[in-house]
């Protein structure tokens, strides 16, 4: 089912959570709404579900205007951040709940068979008689997903699906959710503040800030070509240098980098920790090493540039660098943005 948001607005008391968001989600697409807290991502998800009403704009499911359809009749599967499993029901009863209250009448045997099928899908065969309190967090998450899928939703909505899980479980579940999505092909929107999760899982990432869409695109598109400094910083660690653009080249403390198409003037230069390197001679930003952190795969070098900025970058494990050493930080790759006079 194709989902379309047309200029959707939501205000809580005086706080405007969502400012005219328009978004199209293709049938069968897996889309991540990514943003820091307060960016309105969960509110958008809840409006698509019908758990909040939009103050303005429209939400279409296919060609149907779903804006005023109550959540009960909207046909969405919603997975809550803290699962919201019914604690007094067994896993099987939780999964079967949607079918037993549905307006579409199903026989007991039908429900039991479907529950078994879903338990198999989420790989929880044999746990149907347990209560939610008796299974692990990752298992609860899978029960929540099975419960949402049981009602054959037109769209699957997940609110921070892996937020409450520890790192290992999160990794496995991510891969598993991707597989399930491929198998079922159901249009899926999930909300996360974890950029890695969004990039790993989604076909398309929608980045939000203060209730507005900042950028959307495939993980490749947003990573390779972030639209502004906010997106770049939000997607991952970055070092920031201030400098100046002159004749298509950005200069900062001795380092020079191409900045095609940028007008002359003050600029900020962002480089990922992997895009910086250390050398005894220039050209580069003169700096002194303050600390070296050893990690399994690399060494993280922290330096103080003469221009005052603190920079961090990674070098190969074999490199012999020690605190106190002086040298130059070279730029392998960087993004240059014209300096915003009023940074947000």
């Amino acid at each position, binding site marked *: 089912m194709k989902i379309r948001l047309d200029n959707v607005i939501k205000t809580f008391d005086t706080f405007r959570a969502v400012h005219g968001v328009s978004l199209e989600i293709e049938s069968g697409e897996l889309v991540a709404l990514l943003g820091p807290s307060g960016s309105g991502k969960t509110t958008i998800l809840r409006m698509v579900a019908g758990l909040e009403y939009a103050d303005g704009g429209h939400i279409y499911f296919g060609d149907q205007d779903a804006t005023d359809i109550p*959540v009960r009749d909207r046909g969405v599967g919603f997975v*809550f951040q803290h699962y919201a499993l019914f604690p007094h029901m067994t896993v099987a009863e939780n999964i079967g709940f*949607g079918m037993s209250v*549905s307006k579409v009448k199903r026989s007991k045997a039908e429900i039991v068979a479907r529950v078994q099928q879903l338990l198999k899908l989420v790989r929880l065969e044999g746990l149907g008689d347990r209560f939610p309190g008796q299974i692990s967090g990752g298992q609860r998450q899978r029960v929540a997903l099975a419960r949402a899928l049981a009602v054959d939703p037109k769209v699957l909505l997940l609110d921070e699906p892996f937020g409450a899980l520890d790192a290992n479980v999160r990794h496995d579940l991510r891969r598993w959710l991707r597989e399930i999505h491929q198998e079922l092909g159901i249009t899926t929107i999930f909300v996360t503040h974890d950029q890695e999760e969004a990039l790993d899982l989604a076909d398309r990432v929608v980045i939000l800030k203060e209730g507005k869409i900042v950028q959307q695109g495939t993980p490749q598109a947003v990573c390779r070509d972030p639209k502004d400094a906010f997106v770049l910083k939000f997607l991952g660690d970055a070092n920031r240098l201030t400098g100046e653009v002159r004749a298509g080249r950005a200069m900062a403390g001795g380092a020079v980098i191409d900045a095609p198409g940028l007008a002359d003037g003050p600029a900020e230069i962002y480089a990922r920790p992997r895009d910086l390197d250390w050398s005894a001679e220039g050209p580069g930003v003169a700096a002194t090493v303050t600390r070296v952190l050893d990690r399994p795969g690399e060494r993280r070098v922290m330096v103080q540039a003469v221009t005052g900025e603190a920079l961090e970058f990674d070098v190969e494990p074999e490199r012999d660098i020690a605190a106190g050493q002086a040298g130059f930080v070279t730029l392998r790759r960087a993004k240059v943005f014209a300096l915003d006079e009023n940074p947000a």
Partner: protein
Amino acid sequence: MSQTHHRRKPPRVGDRPLFRNSLIAIVLILGALLILAPLIVIGVEAFSQGWQTYVATLDHPDTRHAIMMTVVTALIAVPVNTVFGIAAAWSITKFDFPGKRLLLVVIEIPFSVSPIVAGVAYLFVYGLQGIFGPLLDAYDVKILFALPGIVLASMFVTAPFVARELIPLMQAQGRDLEEAATSLGASGWRTFLAVTLPNVKWALLYGVVLCNARVMGEFGAVSIVSGNIRGQTNTLPLHIELLYHDYQAAGAFASASILAVLAVFTIIAKVALERRGAGRRKALASLPASQGTRP
């Protein structure tokens, strides 16, 4: 760790043996004098003139009528207050509306006001000289000095019990479960019966038990509005007072023993329910742990 066992613990506030032991002794003695002794006296005095007198007192038409009045009052007031409590807790915890805080305070009023004030207030509202008095009299509706007045006064006094048990629990549970049920297609009524109620049932029962005990034992408010007509508008507590003023000590104690037995059953039910996770503090503390324990 083993070293810290041998080392002297730093003294904590009030941890000196003399202070500790005398404090415990005082509490035990006061508890025995103030609470336990009177209960024992009731038992002893009730049977002081033998079984026959005891049974005869309870079998007296006036006593039987008083018991009946008390039971009928409870049968009306407790369910009504239960419904009120659920409705109040539901609206306070699941909706946002202006005056929500005010409602919370209003629900608490019967706890802080003397029941006799409630009784007097009802006199002014429904009494012959009161606001609705003449109107009610014209249509020959008797509220004061009759069962309706007694029920109303009892309801006023016990209005907070169920709501106060449910509100903190339902607040802690949030709206997620109801939202989940609705998103799965359940109607509001179905959601309430299948999801909300099972999750608050022990707290609800706890509130009902306390409410019932209070309704049956209520004296102050009821004594104003009932008019103390023997065999007609006397509830059990009022009947006990009448017997006592008539110098029928054994009778008074015999009747009182019924209320005392009720109290014991209430305590047992209360403890049993608290084990189930009901009760305000326990319910909150055990919320994450109680997820999924077999109901």
